[in-house]
Structure formats: structure tokens, C-alpha cells
């Protein structure tokens, strides 16, 4: 009884406070959140705007100040030779390393999900290595790869870039695919076996379609990591220069406006794919 007498007024006060605060929260939190989103989008908007900036000096570099609107850089998008070839190199590199990393990472994820520690000795060690690979500072991985290639006299170029990009993508693919595999119903495979399917048919008709969304998510991750990688690429690229390394080199002397044109194009493609995946996901 006494506890009730003591608590009820307090509870009433707190309920009232809750109502007032939640009204505040209903206004303050969304406003704040939208401000953060504006902050995140703002530099991207600046990038798009500057891709339309006129150049007044003889050197064809974007100036910090606004000189007027032009679509010239979109018409001449490929007129900076080093930039265009660097971009296509990055695309080729991302495609090759995504394919390799997705296959290797998916196989590893299957092994990790399917087999217990007693059937798969060394599973714990593999998991530790994956974790270390994701957590290690990228500059350390890049520098140590450079040391490896120099020690064994491996010429730096497209091959070393692929080796490096696959190396840092595998762990991300494995983690992504494993997360999707965790809810996988083994009973479906058992059912296929019971209905007379052999191992290959079971994989083709049951397992693969079920893990496909996870594999695609992993592949997308690998592609995004590869096409945007600067730190590791800077160490192992040698004479074949990928897009981010080229852009970084250019910033030291002056940025041609086409850099922002490419940036805008990559952004448009990426955000378009993201929106498409949301819309498709909603329909399902």
C-alpha cells in the first residue's frame, strides 16, 4: 500500500513528462536527422554543381570559385586521356576481382556454415584470419603487399592489382554470404536428395537459387570496394593506374573538370541501382 501511495504521483508526473518529451522528440529528432542527411548529401551536390563550372584560365582545371554554367565537360568527358584509361582500367579490375573474390568467398562461406568445428578443423583459425583481414588498417595491408612484391621481384601492374583486390574482398564476400546462409534450410536439400536428385542437380536447382541473393550482395560489396580502393592500389599499381589513384595524383597539380563528371556518373549509376533494389524488394 505504502509503495503505491509513494509511486503513483511520480508515475503521473513521469507519464506527463513522457508525453511532452515525445512531442519534442517527434519534432526534434526528425529535424535533426534530416539535417544530418543534408550534411551527408551536401558535398555530393557540390560535386555535381562543379561538374558544370566554366573554366576561365588556360589550364583546364576546375577553380574553387564559380565561373558560370557549362555542359562542355559532359560533351568532352573523354578528352583527358589518362583519366579515361584509368577509369576503364578500374572497371576491368573491379569486374575481374569481383568474379574471383565472389567464387572463392562463397565457397569459403559454404564451408564455414555447413561444417562444425569437429568436421572442419581449423575453422576457428579461418574465422580469425577473416576478422583480422577486415579489421587490419588498409595501409598496413597495402604496404606489406608492396614489400612482398618487391622481395620476390614481381612486376607491379594489373596482375598485382587483381591479387590485392581479391585479397581484401574475399573476407567481405564470405561474411555477407555467410550471413544470408545462416537461415538456410538444410531440409530442402535433403528433400531434393530424397526425391532422387544427385549432388550436382541439387546444387543447381535448390542450393544455388537459395543462396543467390546473398552471393549477389557479396559481389556488389566486392565491386564497390574494388572500384573505390585507393590505399592498397596506390602501393601495388605500378605503371597501370586505376581511377582513384589517378584522381589523387591529379589533385596535387589541379583537377580537370572531367573528374567531377566521372564522379557524378558513378554516383548516378550507384544510386540508381540502390533505388532499383529497394523498389524490387518492396514488390516482392
Amino acid at each position, binding site marked *: 500500500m505504502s509503495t503505491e501511495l509513494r*509511486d503513483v504521483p511520480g508515475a503521473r508526473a*513521469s507519464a506527463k513528462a*513522457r508525453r511532452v518529451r*515525445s512531442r519534442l522528440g517527434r519534432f526534434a*529528432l526528425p529535424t*535533426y*536527422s534530416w539535417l*544530418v*542527411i543534408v*550534411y551527408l548529401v551536401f*558535398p*555530393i551536390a*557540390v*560535386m555535381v554543381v*562543379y561538374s558544370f563550372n566554366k573554366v576561365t584560365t588556360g589550364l583546364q582545371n576546375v577553380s*574553387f570559385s564559380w565561373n558560370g554554367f557549362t555542359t562542355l565537360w559532359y560533351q568532352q568527358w573523354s578528352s583527358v586521356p589518362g583519366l579515361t584509361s584509368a577509369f576503364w582500367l578500374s572497371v576491368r579490375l573491379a569486374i575481374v576481382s569481383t568474379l574471383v573474390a565472389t*567464387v*572463392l*568467398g562463397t565457397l*569459403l562461406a*559454404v*564451408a*564455414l556454415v*555447413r*561444417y562444425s568445428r569437429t*568436421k572442419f578443423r581449423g*575453422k576457428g583459425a*579461418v574465422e580469425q584470419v*577473416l*576478422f583480422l583481414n577486415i579489421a*587490419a588498417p588498409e*595501409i*598496413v*595491408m597495402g*604496404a*606489406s*603487399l*608492396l*614489400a*612482398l612484391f618487391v*622481395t620476390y621481384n614481381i612486376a607491379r601492374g594489373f596482375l598485382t592489382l587483381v591479387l590485392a583486390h*581479391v*585479397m581484401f574482398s*574475399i*573476407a567481405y564476400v564470405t561474411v555477407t554470404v555467410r550471413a544470408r546462409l545462416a537461415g538456410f534450410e538444410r531440409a530442402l536439400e*535433403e528433400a531434393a536428395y530424397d526425391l*532422387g536428385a544427385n549432388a550436382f542437380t541439387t546444387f543447381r536447382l535448390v542450393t544455388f537459387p537459395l543462396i543467390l541473393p546473398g552471393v549477389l550482395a557479396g559481389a556488389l560489396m566486392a565491386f564497390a570496394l574494388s572500384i*573505390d580502393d*585507393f590505399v592498397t592500389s596506390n*602501393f601495388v599499381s605500378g605503371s597501370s593506374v586505376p581511377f*582513384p589513384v589517378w*584522381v*589523387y595524383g591529379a589533385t596535387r597539380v589541379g*583537377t580537370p573538370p572531367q573528374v*567531377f563528371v566521372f*564522379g557524378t556518373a*558513378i*554516383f548516378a549509376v550507384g*544510386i540508381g541501382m540502390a533505388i532499383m533494389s*529497394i523498389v524490387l524488394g518492396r514488390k516482392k
Partner: protein
Amino acid sequence: MERSVSAHYPGGVKPPRFRGLWAKRLAPYLLSLPAGLWLALLFLVPLFLMLSETLKSCSPASGACTMTWNWGELPHTVNLYRAQFVTSLLFALFATVIDLVISFPIAYWIAFYGGRRKNFFLIMLLVPFFVSFVIRTLVWEFILSDNGFLFSFLHRSHLVPSGFHVLGTSVAVVAGLAYNYLPFTALPLYVAIERIDHRVLDAAHDLYANRRVAFTKVILPLTIPGIFAAFLLTFIPAFGDYINQEILGGTSNTMIGTVIQNSFLVNADYPAGSSLSVVLLAISLIGIFAYARVLGSRTIEEYL
């Protein structure tokens, strides 16, 4: 007949299939072999190679290096570049704390009030990742420059004193780091808050907890693992970052990443670069092991 027997075997235990038993035993190793080899040869071997590089002694006369298990090089190099280590530590720490403060409310809002638009808001959090890292940083150089639209306006309207600069200062570097790594903080926080069972909150309110008490006694303790994960996932890459400093910073506030990059790519001083990399890796690992000790080793992976 055989199949129906195996399907109805009591207790769900299947009799062993004798065909392909060896293949079955080897399967996990065969599946993990290609990825395992790739990671061993191109991730672990280079790391050990780098460690061995730091333990060598080189004779200044001939330039030849021999393995001498000379651990003394490590503290020596750290001492030499102590200023850059401290700068990196402070910059990364400031940026991470700023990111935690900025992203906690928005992560909370998306997790609790996002409703059907959760995916949309998550993509808005990830939106910087759709622009190349180097270009993002470059754009901040345009924004923060004295001749850029923002500061030329501020200077012309005398809203800031004439000697006021941001580009080339430590503030610009921390701002760049905070912007570039914000999604690394916001996503783990979102995952942690999203996971909170709303019934626990209802229970707290039923037990007369007001909003503040519910927040400090229920929400905050339940998100602690997420906060630590967010801290590590932001701090470690920010600590080794050098692009923000190179593009947005001046000449006096060099970070350790710049020193490492220069010792490998400019000065070809591999022993020094290796020592610094080993120390950088060690600092990151200490953070990770501390996390694993306190909160369990597997949990951080849930936030990746």
C-alpha cells in the same frame, strides 16, 4: 525403399552413406582451400614478411640486411615519429567521438521511427559511399577553400575575421575524417539499437521509468557493444588514413599514414616503413583484443 528408411530413421539420425565418404570428409577443406591459400599467401605471408623486415639489422656500409631479431628498431622508430603518432591518435579520436555524437540520434530515430522507410534512410546514410573516397575529400577541399563559394561569401560579408582559414588546418582534417567515416559509425549503431526488444522498453515504462531513465538504464547499456564496435570500425581506418590530411591538412600536422606511405613509395626506406606499419597494426589489434576480452570475440562481426 532405402530412401524412405533414411528419411524415417528414428531420432533423425541418418545412416552413413558409404559412397563418397572421403569426398565428404575432405569437402570443407576443398571448399576453403582456394580462398585460404589466397589469404595465406597475400595477407598473412606479407604481414610476417614485414615483421621480419623490422627485426633485421642493416649495415650502413654495404646496405645488406641480415636477420638479427633486433626488436630495438620498433621503439626507436616509434620515438622518432612520436609527434605523427600523437597527431594521428588525436585526429582519429576527435573524428570518432564527433561521429558517435552525430550518428547516435539519427541511428536511434531510424531504428525506432523509421517504419516502412527504414531502407530509404539507410541508403541516405550510405550515400557518401556512392562517390569515390578521393573525390569526396577533394570536394571538401573545394568547400573549405578560402576562394570557395562558402568562405568567399563569409569573408566578403565580414562574418569571419579576414585571417580566418579552415583549409590547411587540423580542423579541416578532423572534419574530413568525420565526414568520410560517418557511415562506419552510424551503421553499427543502427544495428545495435534496432536489435533492442521494444517490450523491454515497455517494461521499463511500466516500472515507472521516465524517458531519461529508460534511456540511460535500458537503451544505452544494450547498445554498448554496438558503440564499441562503431568506435573501432571508425577509429582504426581513421587512424591509418592519410588522404584527408594530404588533401585538407597543412604541412605541420602530418599523420602517421603519410610517413608510412612516403617511406615505402618515396624514400624506399622499407625497414622504417615496416616498423611503423607493425606498430600501427599492433595498436589496432590491442583495441580489437580489448573488445573481444570485454564483449566476446564473435560479436563485433555482427556489426560489419
